[in-house]
């Protein structure tokens, strides 16, 4: 149970970017997991070259990823969205981007498994009765919670945040108010990719990473976003925790081979009852 909660916090951290970009902006950015892996490698390089803590380098790289995300969005906008061809061709664009990033990473870093050990990763707190908390999961969970909170406040309290919420609801109205929806979307996309930087740093401190690890996460990240309700940040966290806890409980009590099936079964059930997701509008 505790393990599941912790896992959920981590899942939230990697899924927030999707929630923002896919949930709010309606852009099916399948390349998001590849950006997460890019974040992992950034953290790896910083750690092996300068001994930086992965979370610190994850934070340091957020501006870089923000710019990267903004550039990617501009390219996407100019080539697809502006011409109204975004749905299918956009999907192909991001799929292509995913492969390009994956291959570039394997050319640059090779295909060896990389992982990071920090001073705290091998420690754990014993709560007695066979229940313990491993720092390896606790730290990512805390960071995931902090990211969720930060994004929640950003969207609810700041001008740009509110503008992003607005652009997801009514582009035209936003334009009438004198704000440029493309600029707002660029910022939102950038923030989503910046979240991937931190998510990647957390990922590499939990499990070893190779350039093709992204494929394991595509399903989970989109499932969490949809389960939580498109674009709901709080919903993403709740959905991530539900997924984490159900995986964890299944593994402990019924055998791990059922864990994913049950998680996705849960997703189907929720969608049947509440098609908009748990917290969808």
């Amino acid at each position: 149970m505790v393990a599941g909660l912790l896992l959920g916090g981590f899942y939230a951290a990697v899924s927030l970017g999707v929630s923002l970009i896919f949930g709010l902006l309606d852009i099916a950015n399948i390349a998001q997991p590849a950006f997460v892996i890019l974040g992992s490698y950034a953290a790896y390089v910083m750690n092996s070259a300068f001994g930086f803590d992965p979370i610190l380098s994850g934070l340091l790289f957020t501006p870089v990823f923000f710019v990267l995300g903004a550039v990617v969005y501009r390219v996407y906008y100019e080539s697809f969205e502006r011409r109204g061809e975004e749905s299918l061709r956009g999907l192909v664009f991001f799929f292509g981007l995913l492969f390009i990033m994956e291959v570039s990473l394997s050319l640059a870093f090779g295909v060896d498994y990389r992982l990071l050990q920090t001073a705290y990763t091998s420690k754990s707190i014993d709560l007695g009765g066979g229940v313990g908390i491993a720092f390896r999961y606790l730290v990512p969970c805390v960071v995931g919670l902090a990211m969720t909170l930060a994004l929640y406040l950003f969207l609810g309290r700041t001008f740009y945040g509110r503008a992003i919420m607005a652009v997801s609801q009514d582009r035209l109205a936003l334009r009438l108010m004198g704000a440029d929806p493309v600029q707002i979307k660029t910022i939102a996309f950038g923030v989503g990719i910046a979240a991937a930087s931190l998510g990647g740093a957390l990922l590499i401190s939990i499990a070893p990473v190779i350039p093709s690890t992204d494929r394991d996460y595509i399903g989970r990240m989109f499932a969490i976003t949809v389960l939580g309700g498109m674009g709901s940040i709080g919903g993403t966290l709740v959905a991530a925790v539900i997924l984490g806890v159900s995986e964890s409980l299944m593994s402990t009590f019924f055998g791990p081979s059922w864990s994913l099936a049950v998680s996705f079964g849960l997703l189907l059930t929720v969608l049947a009852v509440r098609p908009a997701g748990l917290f969808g509008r």
Partner: protein
Amino acid sequence: MRHWVLIAAVVGMVVLAAVGAFVAQAADPIKIGFGMALTGGLSANGKPALLALQIWKDDVNKKGGLLGRPVELVYYDDQTNPATVPGIYSKLLDVDKVDLITSGYGTNLIAPLMPIAMERKLLVMGIFGLANNEKYKYPNYFQISPNGPDPEISTPLGFFELAARQNPKPQTVAIVGADAEYPQNALVGARDLIKKFGFKTVYDKTYPPSTVDFTPIVRAIKATNPDVVFVASYPPDSVGMLRAAHEIGLQPKLFGGGMVGLQFTSVMASVGPMLNGIVNYDFWAPESTMMFPGIKEFFKDYQARAEKAGVDPLGYYLPPYSYAVGQILGQAIEATKGLDQQKLADYIRATEFNTIVGKVKFGKNGEWAKGRTLMVQYQKVQGTGIDQFRGPGKKVVLYPDELKSGNIIYPYSAAKN
């Protein structure tokens, strides 16, 4: 007069062209073709396998080639995707007109090659396939990983034999593995051996390959308090299991078995002392009993080229075996003085080869006549440096007996610190 000059020039050019063509034919390379996982999930092994074959090719060409002809490798990236394999080999055979083929790396990529090779009656050298030929029984298939005649039990065999030899003999066993081809095979073998040696199974479960958190699994295993824990896992899971076991304090008397990935240098170097006490399968270790002729020179070459190729810096797991595939092909070509698929296959079936991985003799279904999967124990690993793994003493060979280089530290907890 000008006509004569022109005619002379044309004749001269024709003669030159003919000579050129003749020279080209004399030095026509022997082409060896294959698909290889250079991207995708198995590329961490596919790329080193390719590098080893390239080193073999360079070594051969430095000595003047085979039958006086240089060797050329023609290869394509199969992307770890079995669906690409038929297309790749059709191109190799029909367009590139390669003389010989080897498989790519790994069971799943060898499976789609088998029907093609059988239809065209080709000699196939398999690179690390598990039980690919059990059903086909194709006589011209030879497989280089030392699984032996019963591939399914090759990984767990040494592990459970060691378990049975300990005093007092452990009683209870937990087995766990991923829902994927290799781990499933290994678990089937483990169940047979548990019966054979009279252990009692207290936990027997599988998990999906994309599992992230292994804590619940390890906790469930710990609750059954087993003497022996056998794990059949792929690299990310191996690391996940190892870390979770340390966090939760799982302390069986014997731990490990079929964990893929712990052999990789990047993984060994990053998990470091967590490896201590783990008894796991392996194919090579820098121990005195494993120093076959030529292997030191191979590693010198390999390690010098590994960084540039972006592959495992030490290369102790698969690369020497991939090089041995080249050696076997080379020796067969020289001995049969030609490239006839059937003659080469007959020669390979009948011959014992001296390679850098020791003596290789093929038997039933093209597997090694006698299995030689090692069981090693990680001992006295300190910190996370790579260099400590270059010399002996860190990965001690416990099994088989003829290659044994040290004694087991038992129980597991005694070696942990």
